[in-house]
């Protein structure tokens, strides 16, 4: 079977979100998760720029530059939503009030370390935004990423080569090939896409 598409991956994450959860979706692929969450799941989305309980983009022509998510995309607020300042927003994130943060990843280590904010190259400008606050503060950190880099190397590794976003925080990894839990005893494959075997997607040693 083919690896999951990005939308299929996003849908898989959406299905896994607990009922009633407060969730922050990182920029990039994690933001695709929103459209796959069923209303019956009663999930509340948080955005670090100061927004709780919002939905997808407004109809064409109705976008408002004052109403955006953390990825600067126009969104709509839902009944029961609220606006607040960055201080209270980061209290929600750092204070453990979010149930799940779904983040993109460059690499995840077998011990749950996450790299997703900077390549470490001297001429690559850093850009952290709220990634470290989320990774350190949400109750569960789920990573949504391709299983392998474009040139075929595993992104789940023994040890991250890229600068870390946070240490030992990732609890679940959703890829185009598998769903993997990060447990104290190690990585546990919860699901695999049919036709793929674990030896094909087990952690690599990481970049030299």
């Amino acid at each position, binding site marked *: 079977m083919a690896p999951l598409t990005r939308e299929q991956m996003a849908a898989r994450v959406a299905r896994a979100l607990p009922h009633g959860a407060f969730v922050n979706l990182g920029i990039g692929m994690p933001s695709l998760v929103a459209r796959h969450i069923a209303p019956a799941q009663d999930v509340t989305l948080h955005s670090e720029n100061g927004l709780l309980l919002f939905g997808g983009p407004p109809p064409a022509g109705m976008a408002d530059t004052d109403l955006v998510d953390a990825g600067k995309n126009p969104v709509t607020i839902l009944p*029961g939503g609220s606006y607040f300042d960055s201080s209270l927003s980061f209290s929600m994130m750092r204070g453990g009030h979010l149930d799940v943060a779904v983040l993109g990843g460059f690499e995840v280590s077998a011990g749950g370390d996450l790299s997703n904010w900077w390549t470490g190259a001297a001429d690559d400008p850093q850009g952290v935004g709220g990634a470290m606050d989320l990774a350190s503060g949400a109750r569960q950190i789920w990573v949504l990423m391709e299983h392998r880099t474009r040139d075929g190397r595993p992104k789940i590794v023994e040890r991250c080569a890229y600068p870390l976003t946070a240490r030992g925080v990732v609890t679940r990894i959703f890829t185009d090939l598998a769903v993997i839990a990060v447990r104290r005893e190690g990585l546990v494959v919860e699901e695999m896409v049919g036709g793929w075997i674990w030896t094909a997607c087990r952690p690599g040693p990481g970049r030299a």
Partner: protein
Amino acid sequence: MPDRVVDSYRDAVAGLRRGDAVMLGGFGAAGVPLGLIAAGLALGVRDLTVIANNAGFGGADLTSWIEAGMVSRVICSYPRTSPACVALWQQGRLAVEVLPQGTLVERMRCAGAGLGGAVSVGTVLAEGKESRVIDGREYVLELPLRADMALIRAHRADRFGNLTYRMTARNFAPMMATAAKLVAAECAELVEPGGIDPEHVVTPGIFVDRVVMQGSLAWRP
């Protein structure tokens, strides 16, 4: 979107246990959650640590818990207004820890915001705490102050738990709502989601676990 509304004060305080730390909103009479306090009184739980600005003024506020022997420790900024609190403390039957009001609220905020502490202005009441000089001024390390339950009074609430307050009844409640494991709010008006302008929400629903409408008198024994 979860529905936070419970049917009775009794349901709102359910789970309060011996030895718990409880935050009670209010400054003077403004914002004291009388219905929730009465429901707690009916539970009769003991050995509580109560965190509040005042220790009550007599009658149906925190004083009623103290008089009922439910409280073993009070953390507050101004205990003197409660005759029962003062008398039991003088008899050695109640521990009272007095904090500057600003330290009290800052420590709540630390707990709610996931901070390990605040480097706060040194005061006489902080003597003995770890201190340091930054930019020529003396500061002390103040640690987070958490609770198992916060009982607060809001004005308008929606089913999702968004809250507004009324006038100076707001005081400590927004910070207490961030600092407790379980937050129960009594409210004077209950509306459907959308009934509070999202610009006017003071405490977003993420911080609130239970909402009870004032006058929900099912708690009475």
